[in-house]
Each structure stands twice: as structure tokens, then as C-alpha cells.
């Protein structure tokens, strides 16, 4: 009977109940969409970082990771790449030469990171060819073949600058500019380049400082004294088939690095470890426990994109915190909305509630009835809100939310301009449960107010 009375009570004031139901639906929908959108934003940052910059796994000289100094490079890169490509999880591997230098144009000077790349490898790794927004007419037909750095008629080597940089330094296609950097021997090198194209990855921080040149050209000038300059690089970027296999593949790759890397660090002799060198040949010997605390002497170390860019984790946790704060605010608004309505429902029924207690309804039964009324509202609204949230996320998860009108802002975060919200099934359940408990919480005060009534006073109410 209590169940029946509570159910009928909520329909006594149909409009009011529908307003509360509407508020809960909007609350649930908003929370779901917000969480989905935040997840989509974080994913966009991750995807943008992977597609434009990091790939899934990168291999470096371990010292390079700490200091970003060009002298910490990888030797015998062909063998390393061959080893990497043997791993069945790897779908693409490419090398890069990375040097810090200065860009000197007619309008100014700027610090840049010079990326020596193989356009064919980059086409698969970062789809760089598709991110070139403007290309010199004479080589535009070479974009498809990823040969945009090759122009036989051209005397100077080619360079790609970002749209951001082009706008800042007033650089245009066909302009000439110079790059200055220090080569492996510490000698200053200055090279002339011709701008053959302007790119835009959508990853603001990357675009701000990066220029792309052909790796062969850069290697010839950076590793100038090496027997085979093209057999060296600073980075191997790797894409794997399934992003979930990143950690396993990274661990496997670390075990598959050339033989000296297979040596357990605890079996190394301390005096053979040459700090700061790019190539360490360390014979396996037993050493004392103290010596085993020396830095890991691998010559090449594979790391996942998360390890390389801790800012991804930072973005994730920041997004989680801000999402939680907003969820808290929405829930708080919901609580007060429900309290307000239920309190009205209680206050306008004082006489009736008094009568119920007069004829023998216990206070806990009155309490239960008010809570039940609120729960009904929640039980009607929550599934509708969840359904609408699911539909919205399904739609925008397919077609995306276009943030191109805020492009400069989103690029600063390293996000793509189109966000695809997504949500795990568990989150729907969690939100539904949270709203359920929010409704219970909101019902407590009006229900408490109801049981504080003295029947005689309540009946006296007009």
C-alpha cells in the first residue's frame, strides 16, 4: 500500500513531478555527456600526441631522454630497426634525427627543433604528407609519393615549416632561410634551406618549434665525420597494431635490443660503464651489489608514449579532477532541486501526513513513503537520462564535436579540432547509481521534516 500511495502521490502534482524528472534527466544527461566529452578530449590529446609526435613507442639513447642533447644518439640504426621490425606487434618503424638549432629568416631568428625525417616513414607514422597545408607548386605532384623534399632543379635542400611559425616569422613557400646548429663534433654548422611547404599538425606546442628536413641531408651535416652518417639517428618511432599491447611490446623490445642490452645490470662491471657515451659495449661480469646501483647501461631504451610524455598523464588527471568538480556541482544542483520540490510536496500535505500518523502510520513509514516518492522520480528519470546520454554520445562519438572555432585554444592543449566523446559501459552504471544515491540523499531532509510533525499540529493546518 505504501508503494501504491507513494506512486500515486508523485502524480498528484503532475507538472511539478515532471519538472523534477526533467531536471534529473538533464542532470544525468549532462554528467554523462561531460564525462564522455572529457574522455574524448583526453583521447584526442593522446591520439594527437601519438599521431603527430610520439607514435606508440620510441627508442632513444637513454641519455638523450634526460638531456635532449644531440650527442646522445643511436649508432648502427639499421640493425636496431631490423630488430624492431622483427617484432610481430610492430606495424611501422621509422628513424628521426633531432637537433636543436636556430632558424634564421629575413624577418627574425627563432629557436627550433630540427627534425630530420624520412618522408615515406613519416607518411605512415605521423601522416606528415597529409598535414602539409601548402606545398610548392613544382613538387605538389610528389606529395602522394612522399617525395616533397626532392626537387632536382633546386639547389638548396628543402624544409617544411609550420603554419604557426610561418605566420610569426612571415615565412612563405619558396622563401630561403638558414638553420644553425652544432654538429656532433661541436662545430657550428649553418645551412641554407628553401621552404617547400607549410604544415599544420593541430598540435600547438609541436608546431610552434618544429621544422622538418630530409634526414639524409641533416645526417650528412650533423654526423659529418661518420663513415656512414645515414646509419645513425636519435629516435626510432614505432607504431604497434593494438594500443593495448604497447607496454608488452615495449618490454619485449627492450629485451630484444642488441646483445649488450640483454645483460642484467647486476652482472656488469662498474668501470666498463662509460657515462654519456652513445654506445656502450659492456662484457658480462659479476659485480658487487653496490656497483649494481649504477645507471642502467642500455644503449637503446624503448619507452611508451606515456613514459616519454608525462604531460599526457597530467592532462588525464587534470581532466578527471575538473570533470569531478563539475559532476559535484551538477549533483549539488540536483540535490537542491529535489529537496525544494519534495519539501513543497511535504509542506502542502501537512494535514494529510498528520492524519496518517493519527490513524496509526508510524514515523518510519511516513519517512519511507517520502523517500520512496523521491526514488520513484529518480527511477523514472535516470534511465531516460542514461538513454539520452548514450544516444548523444553515440551520435557525437560518430560524427564528432567540432571545436574548430576554438582551434587556437584546443591546439594549445595538443588536441584535435574534432572531439569524439566516448564512455565505457561502467560509467553509465556508475552515474546511474550516483544519481540514485543523490536522490536518496535529497529525500532525507524533506522526509525528516515530515516525521518531525506532531499530528495534532499538522491536522490543525488549513
Amino acid at each position, binding site marked *: 500500500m505504501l508503494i501504491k500511495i507513494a506512486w500515486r502521490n508523485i502524480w498528484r502534482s503532475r507538472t511539478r513531478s515532471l519538472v523534477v524528472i526533467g531536471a534529473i534527466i538533464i542532470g544525468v544527461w549532462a554528467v554523462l555527456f561531460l564525462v564522455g566529452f572529457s574522455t574524448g578530449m583526453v583521447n584526442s590529446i593522446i591520439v594527437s600526441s601519438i599521431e603527430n609526435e610520439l607514435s606508440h613507442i620510441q627508442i632513444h639513447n637513454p641519455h638523450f631522454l634526460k638531456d635532449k642533447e644531440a650527442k646522445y644518439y643511436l649508432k648502427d640504426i639499421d640493425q636496431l630497426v631490423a630488430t624492431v621490425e622483427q617484432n610481430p606487434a610492430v606495424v611501422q618503424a621509422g628513424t628521426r634525427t633531432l637537433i636543436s638549432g636556430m632558424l634564421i629568416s629575413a624577418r627574425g631568428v627563432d629557436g627550433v627543433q630540427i627534425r630530420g625525417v624520412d618522408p615515406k616513414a613519416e607518411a605512415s607514422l605521423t601522416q606528415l604528407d597529409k598535414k602539409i597545408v601548402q606545398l610548392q607548386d613544382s613538387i605538389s605532384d610528389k606529395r602522394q609519393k612522399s617525395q616533397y623534399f626532392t626537387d632536382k632543379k633546386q639547389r638548396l635542400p628543402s624544409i617544411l615549416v609550420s603554419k604557426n611559425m610561418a605566420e610569426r616569422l612571415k615565412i612563405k613557400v619558396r622563401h630561403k632561410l638558414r638553420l644553425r646548429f652544432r654538429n656532433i663534433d661541436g662545430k657550428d654548422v649553418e645551412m641554407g634551406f628553401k621552404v617547400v611547404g607549410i604544415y599544420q599538425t593541430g598540435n600547438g606546442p609541436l608546431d610552434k618549434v618544429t621544422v622538418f628536413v630530409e634526414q639524409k641531408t641533416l645526417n650528412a651535416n650533423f654526423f659529418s665525420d661518420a663513415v656512414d652518417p645515414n646509419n645513425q639517428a636519435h629516435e626510432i618511432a614505432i607504431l604497434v597494431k593494438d594500443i593495448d599491447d604497447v607496454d608488452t611490446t615495449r618490454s619485449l623490445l627492450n629485451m630484444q635490443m642488441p646483445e649488450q642490452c640483454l645483460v642484467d645490470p647486476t652482472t656488469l662491471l662498474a668501470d666498463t660503464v662509460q657515462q654519456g657515451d652513445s654506445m656502450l659495449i659492456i662484457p658480462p661480469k659479476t659485480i658487487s651489489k653496490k656497483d649494481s646501483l649504477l645507471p642502467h647501461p642500455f644503449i637503446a631504451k624503448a619507452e611508451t608514449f606515456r613514459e616519454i610524455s608525462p604531460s599526457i598523464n597530467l592532462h588525464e588527471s587534470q581532466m578527471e579532477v575538473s570533470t569531478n568538480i563539475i559532476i559535484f556541482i551538477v549533483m549539488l544542483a540536483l540535490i537542491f532541486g529535489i529537496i525544494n520540490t519534495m519539501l513543497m510536496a511535504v509542506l502542502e500535505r501537512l494535514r494529510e501526513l498528520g*492524519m496518517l500518523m493519527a*490513524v496509526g502510520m508510524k514515523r518510519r513509514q511516513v519517512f519511507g513513503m517520502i523517500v520512496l516518492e523521491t526514488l520513484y522520480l529518480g527511477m523514472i528519470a535516470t534511465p531516460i537520462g542514461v538513454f539520452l546520454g548514450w544516444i548523444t554520445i553515440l551520435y557525437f562519438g560518430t560524427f564528432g564535436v567540432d571545436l574548430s572555432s576554438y582551434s587556437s585554444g584546443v591546439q594549445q592543449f595538443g588536441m584535435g579540432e574534432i572531439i569524439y566523446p566516448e564512455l565505457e559501459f561502467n560509467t553509465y552504471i556508475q552515474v546511474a547509481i550516483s544519481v540514485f544515491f543523490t536522490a536518496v540523499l535529497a529525500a532525507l531532509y524533506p522526509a525528516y521534516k515530515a516525521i518531525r510533525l506532531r499530528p495534532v499540529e499538522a491536522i490543525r493546518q488549513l
Partner: protein
Amino acid sequence: MSNNNNKTVITTKGVTKVYNPKTIPVHALDGVDLEIKAGEFTAIVGPSGSGKTTLLNAIGGLDRPTEGSIEIAGVDIATLSDGKMIEFRRNNIGFVFQAYNLIPVLTAKENVEFVMLLQGKKKAAMDSRTKELLESVGLGDKMNNRPAQLSGGQQQRVAVARALASKPQFVLADEPTANLDSKSTANLLDIMARLNKEENITFIFSTHDQRVIDRARRVVTLVDGKVFSDEYK
């Protein structure tokens, strides 16, 4: 006079009720001594503000007196906790209010069943009792109507049926005919008189209504919270 036996079932001794004792004290009841015997059909009368409703509420355990004691069926109700008092009311006292106070979302049948449900009665027992009561108040054909679909007189008859559903020892009726026309009043009083006789239920009314006073077998008159007269007819 009383019907089957003359056993005293309600005793009030020196019942006093003072509202606002710390600010402007209002003595609603001032030392009321009363004995009511089983099966009586009693009207408590008096001018407005004489304490009729206050006395009825005190007897029904809805309000606690400032001083004095009330014993019902041998139980001093001052000793009962709030929870026990609710239970006591549910099993022993039926209420009929001036404004009917039915549950608007329930049908006549459900309203009558409600108290029995709180008592934990079985469905079959509830069904037969509800039918019997609604038929005896002449509403056998209105069982599935909600209060809004009934006239004032019909609603008050449902309220009487509800008050009797739990088979109480007493029915306390606060101005039950105040909102009814003459025909409905006569009809209601007939029903209550019959139930009083048939089920030996003690009826206590607070009323202004001469029609009720005429039908009562005992009339207690209150003036300024005191018993002014107590007459058996």
C-alpha cells in the same frame, strides 16, 4: 445510557492543557475530570474555544496534557512512547475529522483498508471487512471512487468506515457533521448510532451541531476548559 456493561473505559483526572505557558498562557483545558463507559454515545459540547477539540485530541493521544492523567482501557497513555502511542491509537481508537481527511490518492475501498494494512491484517479479512463497512455506510457501489469523486457526506461516511475498520474500542469524532447538509448529517448519525449499537463501539463527539446533540445519550458541556455540565438523557 450505556449498552452492555457499565465498565469505565476512559478516565481523565485533572486534565489541564496550557498553550504558550512561558509567554501568554492560554488554558485550553482546566482540570477536566471525566469518566466514559463502554458503549457510550457521548457529545462534548460548548462554545468555540471551550476546549472540545483539545480534550478529544488529549483522549486520542494526539496531544499530551500539561497536567493530569488520562487512562484508556486501563493504560495511562502518558506512559506510552510516541511509537507505542501510534500503535495504541491504531489498534484502539478510530478518528473522524471535520474535514474528512481521507487519503486523496486512494479509492474509498483503499482508504478503509489502509488502517487494517497498517495492522497487518490478511487480504481476505480486509476485503470482507471493507465491503461490510462500506455497505453498512451505504457506499457499496462507490468502493472504487476516489475522495474527489464523492460528495462531502459520502466522504465523511468513508471516514467513519475507515475509523471503524480496525475494530477500535472508541471512535473520536471532531465536529463530524460541520461540513454536511441536514440529510447527510441525519444519514451519518443513523449509521453511527447503528454501529454503536451493533458493534458496541464507544463514540465521543465534539460538536456544535444541535442535530448531533439531540441524538447523543450523554452530553458533556465544557466552558472555558472546565466541565460545566454532564448530563445523561
